[in-house]
């Protein structure tokens, strides 16, 4: 059912929202048994919200009329805090942590009548591209199209559920270096990572503070735009949130593409890119041409050459400080109190962080130690500025840039096991640079090959989410 039709029926009382919510909770449990998309299903909160909506409808409360998400199920990446619902960011070290407050985006969703159905699976703290780096004791989510394969990461549970749920649902994901667009592309859904600062990060369990962005993942471009519209805006609790005008995406979705200019990133095709991927992305570009865009090949030197290195220096440096607070003292994991505080912290951290989390803490700590700091952390920050400058120059000529989201089709778990960490990181080559530059980017499903989905990445200038959704809308119902 079309989401607007669903909201209309909820408002009219044609759908009993409490019964509906009970039903979808059961469906979620069933999906989860097979696919592991949820770390927690928040049945209690969802039903409580549904009852509240029913009560308001009954009392003919006027505020209900304009609610943009009335009754729509929203799943939340585990790293985004939901009050009184276990929020672990996929890590054993936060097992049992129930935040005392809602993330700002959650407040906004609840305010618009969206129903929070649970916390979705992810790589521990976002450290991965396949959701296989889940925390100790967590389950790995599986691709909704082929269970032998990954649904991508780190927002793997979000993208998987967005595809698998056959009830009205939008997922909330988070991207630090591609964690929205990559799983969206592997799961045949839309994933929008907005401009850095567009959506408040208040209540997001940090990975890399200068890189983290919360964003929507939806089965349709429209739903993706709808959730983005609900969650965006300035927040005084997040000093990095932008005081920008709202996107008003509905108007963009209706606009014609005539006269728009797309840059096709030359380096993103050719060697290392699966031919099936290239073929489908080219097809996608042709489809936009049919709608009136002009396309031109361009080269992005700095972003392609240095994006990945800059990303790993900055992201791990920031992550290693963000993860310091987890030490078994104030919340989450606790162990028997023994020895000095140093011994105790070491014991908790050794037994509760997964291997990739430890690898990134070590890398990040190294990069910011005196003697290395200038060569790594500081150098990376400088190159980051050069990357942003090159993008800004490019966007003087183009409305958006196009490339494959990921150079390969969703890999099998058995193949992932054989990859070295570096091979693994290299798959993010197209995704990290827009993230490093804080640029909005949208993954759009452009086709299937060998029964597997291919996603195209559209990258826009700062605050130009509207243009991306306008382009993406061409692929609605593809």
């Amino acid at each position, binding site marked *: 059912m079309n989401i607007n039709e669903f909201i209309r029926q909820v408002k009219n009382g044609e759908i009993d929202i409490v019964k509906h919510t009970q039903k979808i909770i059961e469906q979620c449990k069933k999906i989860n048994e097979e696919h592991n998309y949820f770390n927690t299903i928040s049945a209690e909160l969802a039903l409580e919200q549904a009852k509240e909506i029913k009560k308001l409808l009954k009392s003919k409360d006027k505020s209900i009329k304009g609610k943009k998400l009335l009754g729509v199920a929203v799943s939340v990446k585990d790293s*985004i*805090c939901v009050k009184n619902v276990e*929020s672990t*960011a996929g890590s054993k070290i*936060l097992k049992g*942590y129930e*935040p*005392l*407050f809602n*993330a700002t985006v959650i407040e906004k969703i609840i305010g618009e009548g969206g129903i929070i159905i649970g916390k979705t699976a992810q790589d521990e703290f976002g450290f991965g591209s396949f959701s296989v780096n889940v925390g100790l004791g967590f389950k790995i989510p599986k691709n909704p199209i082929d269970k032998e394969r990954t649904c991508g990461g780190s927002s793997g549970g979000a993208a998987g559920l967005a595809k698998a749920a056959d009830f009205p649902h939008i997922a909330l994901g988070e991207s630090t270096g591609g964690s929205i667009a990559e799983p969206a592309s592997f799961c045949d859904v839309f994933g929008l990572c907005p401009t850095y600062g567009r959506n408040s*990060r*208040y*209540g*997001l*369990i*940090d990975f*890399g*503070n*200068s890189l983290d962005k919360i964003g929507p993942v939806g089965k349709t471009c429209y739903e993706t735009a709808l959730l983005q519209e609900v969650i965006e805006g300035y927040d*005084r*609790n*997040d*000093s*990095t949130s932008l005081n920008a005008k709202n996107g008003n995406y509905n108007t963009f979705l209706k606009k014609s593409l005539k006269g728009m200019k797309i840059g096709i990133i030359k380096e993103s095709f050719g060697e290392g890119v699966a031919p099936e991927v290239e073929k489908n992305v080219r097809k996608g570009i042709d489809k936009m041409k049919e709608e009136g865009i002009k396309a031109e090949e361009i080269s992005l030197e700095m972003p392609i050459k240095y994006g990945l290195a800059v990303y790993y220096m900055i992201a791990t*440096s*920031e992550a*290693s*400080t963000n993860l*310091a*607070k987890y*030490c078994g*003292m*104030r*919340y989450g994991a606790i162990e028997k*109190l023994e020895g000095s*505080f*140093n011994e105790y*912290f070491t014991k908790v951290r050794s037994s509760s962080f997964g291997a990739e989390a430890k690898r990134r803490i070590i890398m990040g*700590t190294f990069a*910011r*130690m*005196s003697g290395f*700091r200038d060569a790594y*952390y500081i150098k990376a*920050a400088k190159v980051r500025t050069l990357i942003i400058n090159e993008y800004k120059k490019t966007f003087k000529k183009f409305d958006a840039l196009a490339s494959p989201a990921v150079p390969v089709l969703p890999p099998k778990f058995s193949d992932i096991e054989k990859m070295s960490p570096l091979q693994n990181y290299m798959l993010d080559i197209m995704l990290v640079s827009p993230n490093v530059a804080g640029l909005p980017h949208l993954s759009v499903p452009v086709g299937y090959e060998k029964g597997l989905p291919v996603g195209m990445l559209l990258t826009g200038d700062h605050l130009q989410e509207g243009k991306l959704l306008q382009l993406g809308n061409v692929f609605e119902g593809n």
Partner: protein
Amino acid sequence: MKPFTSDVVIGIECHAELSAKTKLFCGCPTKGSEEPNSRTCEICLGMPGSKPVLNKKAVEFALKLCLALNCEISPELIFSRKSYFYPDMAKNYQISQYEIPLGRNGKLRLKDGKEIGITRVHMEEDPASLVHPAGLKDSQYVLVDYNRSGNPLAEIVTEPDLESADEARNFMKQLITVLNYLEIFDINSGIIKADANISIRESGYTRVEIKNITGFKEIERALSYEISRQKQEVRAGKAIHQETRSWDSERGITFSLRKKETEEDYGYIIDADLTAIDISENWLKEIKRHMPELAQDKLKKFVGMGVKKDDAEIIAADKFLAAMFEKVAEEIDPVLAAKWLRRELLRVLNYSKKELHEAEITEKHMIQLLRLVESRKITDNVASKILEKLVEKPFDVKEYVKKEKLGAVSDASELEKYCKEAIEENPKAVEDYKKGEAKALNFIVGKIMQKTKGKAAPKEVNEIVLRMIK
């Protein structure tokens, strides 16, 4: 840096609590309930997902300090994360400043005129406080109270310009004077702490860091101890090691915490949760406009009013005394007012162990009192006694003088009567004076004062006695 030449070389790092109402990065009050962990929120507890939001008022306080210390001020305020693991740290990093401190290259002038270089002034958040239930050494566990966590601090780092424990004390005292003048530090409850780097010539200036010194009295004690300890070690043929020591105020000693082979590595990175804040010329202008006059300015002004330099210095050093002086001097001759405030008022306060801001006496009482002194309606002697009572509990001075009949006796015929009596009763003193013993005159005048209970105007008495015995 030029080589050290003095016997002792000291540089200090002070942490002063800024008296902003709310914490540096959240809205929790900095003062209030002492119930442990009652003034906390997800931000000052470092809960996952929480983010800091800067308290601009605290920045203004720190900027005032930078201006008062003649610092070069950074055009941008940037915070960094200082990482280290410790149970009093909510996030296991402290939000502080690193590469670009708020202020640098400043100076503070001590009372004797010596200038102490200020390397940097920066802002940071206070950690929580640790409670050791059975004392620092013997406790099996510690309790953590986050009420203090996130309170705004200013760190002030000096150049190694201090040359004695006494000078370090003077520096701290002068710094407190400045903080107090600026109204950015609560003199009653604010905490000022210091870590000191100290070395002596005999050891070839091997640097030892002393931590945990609270207040200016303690810094003198701690450094005096440490200087003699180092000298004794060298005399006994032992080497001084580069190390960090802690001051134990109860036992009056320093003890070794850790040997320092290398500098600690805090792995500083920019705190990306806080955007860089522009410190515009306009903002600084606005702050300057609201800055009170500082001790140095006051000193100059008071001397210009004719006040003696040493009186002016002492009055200017105390914000409350200076404020009182300025008001009194509008009504009373400044030289007289200065003399009375500096000598008599401070003496009486000191005697009754009170600070001026704790006593109830106001400029109104001082003006009443000094107006009577100025017009010679009461004698100095009587005025001093009234002042003692005023400091205990203030009252209307004029009425009191009237009621207690304390007015000076200056009526010539009445004075002559007392003088005549005294001369007749003390013939020996009169003889002595005539023989050339000038002191004998004082004896006679003293007798007259006794008779009048101090109310006789001394100048007139002198004249009358001299006239009578000639």
